[in-house]
């Protein structure tokens, strides 16, 4: 995982710190009777790398298309740098898009594709070749300048699409699952390049993906969407460590969801009991697999919750051991440092602070 940028540690909120570049105000979108976006409000800071993460049908692409101008919001407003954006046609917005399928013009060469935006927006003719070459060099595609897109591989087309979108020097770059068509290795490589490109240029990136690892690796902040609503907006570290809902906890990384009953500041879930500050009543807790530790490794801290469990399954994954634990019928997943085969009953512990109360 690439270490997140300096703006990574932020409050759990949909408002950005620093200069707000883009502001989505209470935007809703319906296609006929189908409500795709439910009153979304979101701020993106200047220079930020924000990822909209969600399953297909969560509305992330629709929100992107509203910002690009390919769709009109049913209600709400979108503002960019103090200018109302949603009433402008797409060609008047200082926003450029990298499309999922690249959408390169098949009848134009790589060079002509990249020059397109400059030509149609009336950039000075003398400037165009220089800026095109610069953009092509930036994505390492200079030598393919005279080729047609059909002659290029997926990764190369991806680079051209990126150069074409960046050559206009947009304030905001929208990326619609740009890496989803690439194979795993190329994907990793492009992730790194995208991230360093974004830092170098200082352009704000709004990135759409359904891949949580990609979102974690690239983003300053992640906006998690579910069924057209914002589930949580936070930095990757925050969203992983402090998931607000059970959906977030399960979507980002793995987790154990513990259904508990709280009475007198003590939570009880099956045979487990720990102290907590929540009010009395039913509650749901997320406990990450790596928060469960093997007792025999070392003494637990004070207040740790100790329990005995049968090991049902052990999967060696190279850097860790994945365990499936059985506590008298209650199943828990644990991830512990590599330590060779385990069997039978073992004693484990977790810290009550790692059991995060989440909304349903």
């Amino acid at each position, binding site marked *: 995982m690439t270490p997140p940028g300096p703006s990574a540690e932020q409050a759990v909120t949909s408002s950005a710190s620093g200069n707000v570049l883009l502001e989505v105000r209470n935007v809703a979108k319906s296609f006929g009777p189908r409500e795709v976006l439910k009153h979304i409000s979101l701020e993106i800071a200047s220079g930020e790398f924000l990822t909209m993460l969600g399953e297909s049908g969560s509305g992330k692409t629709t929100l992107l298309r509203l910002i690009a101008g390919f769709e009109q919001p049913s209600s709400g407003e979108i503002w960019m740098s103090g200018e109302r954006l949603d009433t402008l046609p*797409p060609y008047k917005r200082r926003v450029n*898009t990298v*499309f999922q*399928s690249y959408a390169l*013009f098949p009848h134009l060469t790589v060079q002509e594709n990249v020059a397109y935006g400059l030509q*149609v927006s009336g950039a000075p003719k003398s400037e165009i070749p220089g800026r095109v070459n610069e953009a092509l060099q930036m994505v390492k595609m200079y030598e393919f300048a005279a080729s047609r897109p059909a002659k290029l591989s997926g990764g190369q087309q991806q680079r051209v699409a990126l150069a074409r979108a960046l050559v206009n020097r947009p304030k905001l770059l929208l990326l619609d699952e740009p890496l989803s068509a690439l194979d795993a290795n190329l994907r990793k490589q492009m992730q790194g390049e995208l991230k360093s490109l974004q830092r170098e240029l200082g352009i704000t990136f709004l990135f759409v993906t359904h891949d949580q690892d990609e979102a974690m690796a690239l983003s300053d902040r992640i906006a998690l969407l579910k069924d057209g609503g914002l589930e949580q907006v936070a930095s990757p570290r925050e969203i992983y460590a402090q998931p607000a809902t059970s959906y977030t906890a399960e979507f980002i990384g793995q987790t154990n969801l513990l259904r508990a009953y709280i009475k007198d500041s003590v939570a009880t879930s099956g045979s487990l009991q720990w102290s907590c500050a929540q009010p009395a009543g039913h509650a749901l807790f997320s406990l990450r697999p790596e928060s469960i530790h093997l007792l025999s490794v070392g003494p637990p801290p004070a207040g740790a919750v100790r329990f005995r469990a049968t090991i049902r399954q052990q999967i060696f994954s190279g850097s860790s051991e994945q365990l499936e634990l059985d506590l008298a019928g209650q199943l828990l997943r644990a991830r512990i440092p590599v330590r060779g085969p385990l069997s039978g009953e073992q004693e484990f512990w977790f810290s009550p602070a790692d059991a995060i109360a989440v909304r349903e």
Partner: protein
Amino acid sequence: MYTRAYKWIVSAPPLLWVGIFLLLPYALMLAHSFWLVRDGVIAHEWNLQNYAKLFQNPVYLEVLFRTMRIAAGVTLLSLLLGYPLAYYMSFQAGVRKDLLYQLVIVPLWVSYLVRGYAWKTILGSEGVLNGFLQYIHVTKEPVSFFLYSPFAVVLMLTHIYTPFVFLPLYASLEHIPRNLVEASYDLGASSRATFLRVILPLSLPGLLAGATFAFLLTLGDFLAPLLVGGPSSIMIANIVQSLFGTSYDWPLGAAISVSILLLTISLLFFTERLEKRWAFR
């Protein structure tokens, strides 16, 4: 694997069909074009006299050029009508697309002759158009030049061949990925620039196919001049028809046919090359 006999049995019918109904007539036509008529009988004497006549008698070239002018007119008008229609239907019509498509197709089910006669009743001196013009007092007398003029031929053939121009155009417009249009807007191009720089270039193969249809179908047409054209708009196919009929000069008719055939084939060859170059895939 299939046996030899099986292969022969299945390929014989199409081979026979092509042989008897296509290759044989062409061979006969080619042979006739090098023969001549003497004393009202076709003499099987090989010569180039028929082809020489084509260039010696100015009538043939004149009619051929007129035919090509009419064909060019029909092509141009069909494109002017067909392109906006195809563009509208592909990009703007939305849910009405299917209905409009059917409306364009329906006239193709009506016989060519019926549509020809329809124009006769519209353009004639007792026709709908003249009646209307007199009714609104634009003219006092029936206007006679509507019917029996090259104009009438162009009008009728444009009506008949516009769907043939429309169909390949519409297909090529439908095949343009919509995200290319979005990408163009996204990069700052207005609708006009998007049309000129993206949509039009990508629809060129369809445009070429449609234009070829209209031009070549008109080139071989002989009914429109008979129905609505009159003597001033005789086309090359009318000459061929009369040479094979009342004039009884099959060899000359065959020579003209072979010439038109060569013209058509070279045009097709040329447009095919262009279409390949513009396919970009």
